[in-house]
C-alpha cells in the first residue's frame, strides 16, 4: 500500500491513477490473504503443537519438524514423487511440444479434430480418468490382460509394485499432454510471421525453423508448463489415492507426500503433524520451482 501512495505522489497525473490500481487488485489481494496466506499462517501455527487423544494440546515448538525430517515415510514419499517428476515430466512436455509443433506446421489433415482429441482427456476429471485407467489396467478383466491371455502371453502387471509408478505416469501424461500442448501451441501462434519469412529467405527448412526460431520463442511457455508440472508432480494425490482402492497392497497411505499428509490428518487424527508435513512439502515445491527458474535463467544468460 505505502509503495503505491509513494509512487502516486511522485507521478505527474495526480491522485486518481494511484487509486485505481489498488481498487482493481483489492479483490485479488483480499482473496489471496483470506484463502492463501491465512491458511498458510494457520498451518504454520498448528505445526508447532501436538494434539493427542490423551493429554490434550501441547506446544512442542519445532519438534514436529525434527520428526518429519527424519520420517522415512515422508522421505520415501518425496523421493517417489521426485522420481516421478524426473521421468514423467520430460516425457509429457516432449510429447506436448511435438504435438504443438506438428499442429502449428499446418501439414496435418484434420488438425482441428486432432487438437481437440489430444485436449479432451484434460476435460475428463482426474477422478474419472483414474477409475477408467484402473479398469483398463485390471489383471483379470481389463482389456490388456484379456488380450494378452487370448494371445497366450502372460498378462501385464500394471498394478504391481514395479509397474505402478509407470502406470501412474501414464495416466498423468494422458491427462495433461493436451493441456500443455495448448499452452505451447498458443505461444507458437504468437510468433510473428516475419520471422519465418526472414528465416526462409536465409534458406532455412521447416526443421531448421522449428529448431532455431520456434523453440527459442517457446522458452517462456515451456518454462511455464515446466513450473506447473513441478507443482503438479509434487502434489500428486488423486491418481494414487484412487488406484489405492484396487491396489491396496502397492499404494500405501504414504505413497506420495501429499497422500501422507492427508492420511495423517484424516486417518491418524494427527492434524498438527499433517500441517508440518504439508508445510515442508510446500517448501520442497518452492525450492524445486526456484531451481527450475534459476537453471533456465542461467541458460539464457550464457
Amino acid at each position, binding site marked *: 500500500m505505502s509503495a503505491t501512495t509513494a509512487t502516486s505522489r511522485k507521478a505527474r497525473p495526480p491522485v486518481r491513477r494511484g487509486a485505481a490500481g489498488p481498487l482493481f487488485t483489492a479483490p485479488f489481494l483480499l482473496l489471496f490473504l483470506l484463502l492463501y496466506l491465512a491458511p498458510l499462517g494457520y498451518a504454520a501455527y498448528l505445526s508447532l503443537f501436538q494434539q493427542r487423544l490423551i493429554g490434550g494440546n501441547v506446544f512442542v515448538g519445532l519438534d514436529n519438524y525434527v520428526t518429519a525430517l527424519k520420517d522415512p515415510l515422508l522421505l520415501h514419499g518425496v523421493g517417489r514423487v521426485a522420481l516421478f517428476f524426473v521421468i514423467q515430466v520430460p516425457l509429457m512436455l516432449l510429447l506436448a511440444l511435438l504435438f504443438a509443433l506438428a499442429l502449428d506446421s499446418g501439414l496435418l489433415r484434420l488438425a482441428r479434430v486432432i487438437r481437440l482429441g489430444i485436449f479432451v482427456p484434460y476435460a475428463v476429471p482426474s477422478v474419472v480418468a483414474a477409475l477408467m485407467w484402473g479398469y483398463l489396467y485390471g489383471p483379470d478383466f481389463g482389456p490388456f490382460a484379456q488380450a494378452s491371455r487370448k494371445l497366450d502371453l502372460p498378462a501385464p502387471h500394471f498394478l504391481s509394485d514395479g509397474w505402478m509408478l509407470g502406470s501412474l505416469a501414464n495416466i498423468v501424461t494422458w491427462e495433461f499432454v493436451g493441456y500443455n500442448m495448448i499452452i505451447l501451441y498458443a505461444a507458437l501462434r504468437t510468433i510473428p510471421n516475419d520471422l519465418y519469412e526472414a528465416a526462409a529467405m536465409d534458406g532455412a527448412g521447416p526443421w531448421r525453423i522449428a529448431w532455431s526460431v520456434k523453440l527459442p520463442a517457446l522458452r517462456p511457455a515451456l518454462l511455464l508448463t515446466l513450473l506447473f508440472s513441478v507443482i503438479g508432480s509434487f502434489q500428486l494425490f488423486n491418481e494414487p489415492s484412487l488406484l489405492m482402492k484396487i491396489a491396496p497392497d502397492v499404494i500405501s497411505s504414504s505413497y506420495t507426500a501429499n497422500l501422507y499428509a492427508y492420511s495423517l490428518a484424516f486417518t491418524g*487424527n494427527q492434524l498438527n503433524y499433517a500441517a508440518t508435513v504439508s508445510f515442508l512439502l510446500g517448501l520442497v515445491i518452492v525450492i524445486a520451482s526456484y531451481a527450475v527458474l534459476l537453471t533456465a535463467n542461467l541458460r539464457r544468460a550464457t
Partner: protein
Amino acid sequence: MPRSFVPTSSLSRRRFLASTGAVSLGATLAACSGGSGTSGSSSSAKPASQADIDKAMKTPTQLTFWTWVPDIEQEVALFEKKYPAIKVKVVNAGQGVAHYTKLRTALKAGTGAPDLAQIEYQAIPTFTITDSLLNLSPYGASALKERFVDWTWGQVSGPGGEVWAIPQDTGPMGMLYRKDIFDRHGIQVPQTWDEFAAAARKLHKAAPDVYLTNLAANEPAAWHGLLWQAGAKPYATSGKSTLSISVDDATSKKLASFWGGLAKEGVISTDPDFTDAWYAGFNKGKYATWLTAAWGPAFLSGSAKATSGNWRAAPLPQWDASKPSSGNWGGSTTAVLRSTKNPIAAARFAQFLNSDPASAKMFATKQFFFPATKALLADADFTGDAPAFYGGQKVNQIFADISGTVSPSFQWPPFLDQAATDWTETVGKSLAGRSDTVAALGTWQSRLTTYAKNQGFTVRGA
C-alpha cells in the same frame, strides 16, 4: 456397508442399499466389566423426569440428523407423526469416513454439528474418547436393553452403564456359497476351517480359474469379524487412557497362519473388494463363496444378478464345531452428540427410530437392513422370506440363527481408522504379496503400539 473402515473407502456408489454400516462393531468399554455392568448402574447421570420428557416432546423443536441411510425419511415420518411438535431435518453428509471426518471437523469447530448422527458400532469408541457422545441412559435408553440382541448392547454401552447409541442394524457373519460350483466338484459345505482349507485346495486344483473364496487384502473389517469369531480380544480398554493391544496373540496367529497359508498356496484369492474387478469376479464365477455379513445376501443379489438361483447361505466354518460362534461385520447405530441443545428430544428420537416396532420393521423391509431387535429376528414375516436368488432358501432365518452365536465381548480401539490402515499395509499386504502373514501381525502390533503411545495412551503389552 462394508467398508467405511478404511479411509479411502467411501465408494458411495457401491454402498447403495446396505449402507449398513460397515464393519463390525463398535466398541465399548463394556466388555471388560464382564458385559453385565450395563443394565443396573445408570446412576452416573441423573435421569430426566417423565414431566421433563413430556414437556420436551411437546415443545416445537428442530433436530438435525446426519445419516447416509437411503430413504430414512420414511422412518422419520413415523416419529414426526407421533410427536408433531418435533421436526427432524435429515442431512446426508456422506458415508462412513467422509461422514465421520465432517462430524469431527464440526465438533472441533464447535459449531455446525448435528443433534444426532449415524455411527457404526466400531466407530463409537473413537467418539467416546473425545467425549463427543451423549449418554442416553438418563433418557430411558437403559430400559431398551432387552429389546436388542445381546451383543449389540455390549457394543453401545459403557462400563458405567452409559448408553452411547441405539443399535440400528447388524452384520453377523456367515458364508454365501455357489451350490452349483460345489455340486459340480463334489464339495460338501465345510463345517470346520480344516474342511474349508481342504475344499479350497481341491477346488482350485480342479478348476484353476476358480477360488473357494476371496479374502480381500484391503478389508480389515472382514479380518476383524473373523478375529471376533475366533474369540480374539485384540483391543481392550481399561479406564480412559490404558489400552491393551494384542493383535498378534495366539488366536490372531492361528488366523494368520491359516489365511496366510492358503493365500501363499494360491488356493484363495486376495482381490480388493467392492471394486469393478471384484464384482465381475462374482458374476463370472471366480469366487465360490463369500464370507460376509447378514447384509451380504441382499447386497449380492443386487450385484451379481447373472448368478441368481445358484447361491445358498450357511454359517461360517468353525474352529470348534461343537461350539458354533460367529463375528460381526457391519451395522450401525444412532447416537446423540453431546453438543446438542435438545438432549431429551434427540435421545427419544434415537430410541424411537430404532426400537419402535413399525420403524424397526421398516428398516428390515425397505432398506433391507439386518435387524438389531430380538422381536424382528423372531418375526416370521422377516425370517420366512425366501428369495429366488438363493433358490428359495430362507436366508434371513439362517442369519438370525447365526446372530445368537456372536460373542458379546469384542471391543474396538479408540482409533479405528489408524488400526484399519495399518492392517491393510501390514497383514493385508502380506496376504496379497504371499509373504509371511504371521510376521506381518508383529509389524501391525508394533505400528499400533507406537501410534497409541504417541497419542498418550499407556499401552499394556499383548
